[in-house]
């Protein structure tokens, strides 16, 4: 990407340098709007330099139902993102503390949860349990991976059984919700945490606003399903600016890590 290129912020409509946007991990220098962040960048943001080791990167989605168009979608998503699926997971250090970390990537088929996402979340949870590490997940997902049908739905069950065992221990599970997080991810591991942190303005919910408006013919209020809305309704502990997130996690891990 050409670092001298200007782009216009979708939110404040002001011109911003691409390189400034990149340097601020996709947060607008002008209006602080938080754009989606690729998983490798998120890992770089949160973990101590050079501490992250990826695990289970060799896992790749099958096409269990033989769903029309799915292999093509997978191929182009892999090319576009350089990732194996909509998730990057492994172990790393946050302020010198080792954690098990799973980060979703919205660019990969809308961050949808299929078998690989479910499996890698479950393995990350199991790793955290086996090694006695705090568990941190960062969600960004449109919901289920429809192309995998029932396999996709059952990842909600898989991540839940894994988490349920982890929760018997005394290490924390911290879930970070980013824009957007919806559907099966919100209705399973992303909200089953001890502590839930959301980025400013992140839209988080079960059904998307468009679906709700279509179903109920009701106009939804301004700010519906934003992180701020969810905190007001008691669903989220804290709203933390992306650039303050690492420090916030270090403080939190100082209490419960």
């Amino acid at each position, binding site marked *: 990407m050409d670092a001298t290129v200007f782009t216009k912020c979708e939110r404040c409509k002001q011109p911003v340098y691409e390189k400034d946007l990149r340097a601020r991990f996709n947060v607008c220098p002008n209006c602080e709007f938080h754009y989606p962040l690729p998983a490798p960048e998120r890992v770089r943001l949160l973990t101590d330099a050079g501490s992250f080791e990826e695990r289970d990167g060799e896992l790749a989605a099958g096409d269990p139902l033989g*769903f029309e*168009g799915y292999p093509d979608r997978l191929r182009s998503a892999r090319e576009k993102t350089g990732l194996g699926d909509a998730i990057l997971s492994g172990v790393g250090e946050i302020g010198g503390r080792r954690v098990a970390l799973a980060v979703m990537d919205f660019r990969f088929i809308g961050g949808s949860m299929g078998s690989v996402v479910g499996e890698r979340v479950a393995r990350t949870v199991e790793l955290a349990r086996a090694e006695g590490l705090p568990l941190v997940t960062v969600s960004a997902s449109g919901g289920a991976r429809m192309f995998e049908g*029932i396999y996709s739905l059952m990842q909600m*069950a898989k991540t*839940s059984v894994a988490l349920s065992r982890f929760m018997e221990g005394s290490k924390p599970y911290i879930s970070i919700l980013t824009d957007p997080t919806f559907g099966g991810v919100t209705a399973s591991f992303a909200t*089953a945490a001890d502590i839930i942190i959301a980025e400013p303005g992140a839209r988080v919910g079960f059904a998307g606003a468009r679906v709700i408006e279509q*179903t109920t013919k009701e106009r939804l209020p301004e700010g519906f399903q934003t992180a701020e809305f969810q905190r007001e309704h008691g669903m989220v502990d804290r709203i933390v600016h992306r650039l303050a997130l690492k420090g916030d996690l270090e403080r939190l891990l100082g209490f419960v890590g």
Partner: protein
Amino acid sequence: MLDFERPIKELEERIAELHRLAGESEGLQAEISRLEEALEAARRRIYTNLSPYQRVQVARHPERPNFRAYRDALCEDFYELSGDRHYGDDAAVRGGFARIRGRNVVLIGHDKGADVKSRVEGNFGMAHPEGYRKVKRLYGLAARFGLPVVTLVDTPGAFAGRGAEERGQAWAISEDLMALAAVPVPVVSVIIGEGGSGGALAMCLADYLGMLENSYLSVIAPEACASIIFRDSSRAPEAAEALKLTARDLKEHGVVDEVLPEPLGGAHRDPEAAIRAVGEALERVLAGVSGSSPEDLLKRRYARYRRIGSYQRLPGPSSG
């Protein structure tokens, strides 16, 4: 009546008409017999070859026996409990202590209602967060008193609405999943109609999952899937085919333990037969799991859900 049932309906009407006239003419008897044979053949032809989408339509049939019919027929006693202790009571799901063929259980089911008033009260079986939180309370009571959980699933899905979101629909469902993952008593589930996505799964992360022959379980409604993937909701029949959402498909994929037979034409054609099939399965399965230790149950439940997935190992790590 469903579209594909039209030939059957027409034959039935002609036979009824001829019966009315039969008093006046002996000669009609032969015609009636001929039509009755044709009717039987049409029933067999149509109902034994239902497409996945036709099965979805049967699962949604307004006359299909629902939770109320099973509850009334199968329970010697049903002691209903209400409320989530936080916000309210949700009539879309009902539950309480029940005695089924002599066994005490906690019975929970989506209630699609019996008439317009109760269907609306129960929001057509689409629960709000308070419904899922009531369910979680009931899982807790089952654990506390060592009673098996029996669920009868029949929902288009968790409700998508403003209030549901304001009260944490996703949070409520994930709490149920976490509760089921840990509840140290047998969990026995049967999908009796619609198994719509997370709203269904919150009540069937189970040790045994049975499905009536014409029920379905799917990550998304076929209409919604068609409108997202094919950008055309009228292609729902194709989506239903692709999603592999029928009881038989799910048995093949190892998600479902047993397909419970329905009478020809679907449960609504002979509710007693469908209810009998479910009752027999429940009796057999509950007897089978009654001696299991909590440790064994949880170990098996973990293994059961931990293994579901379809992925391969590629050589070399991803570039992430």
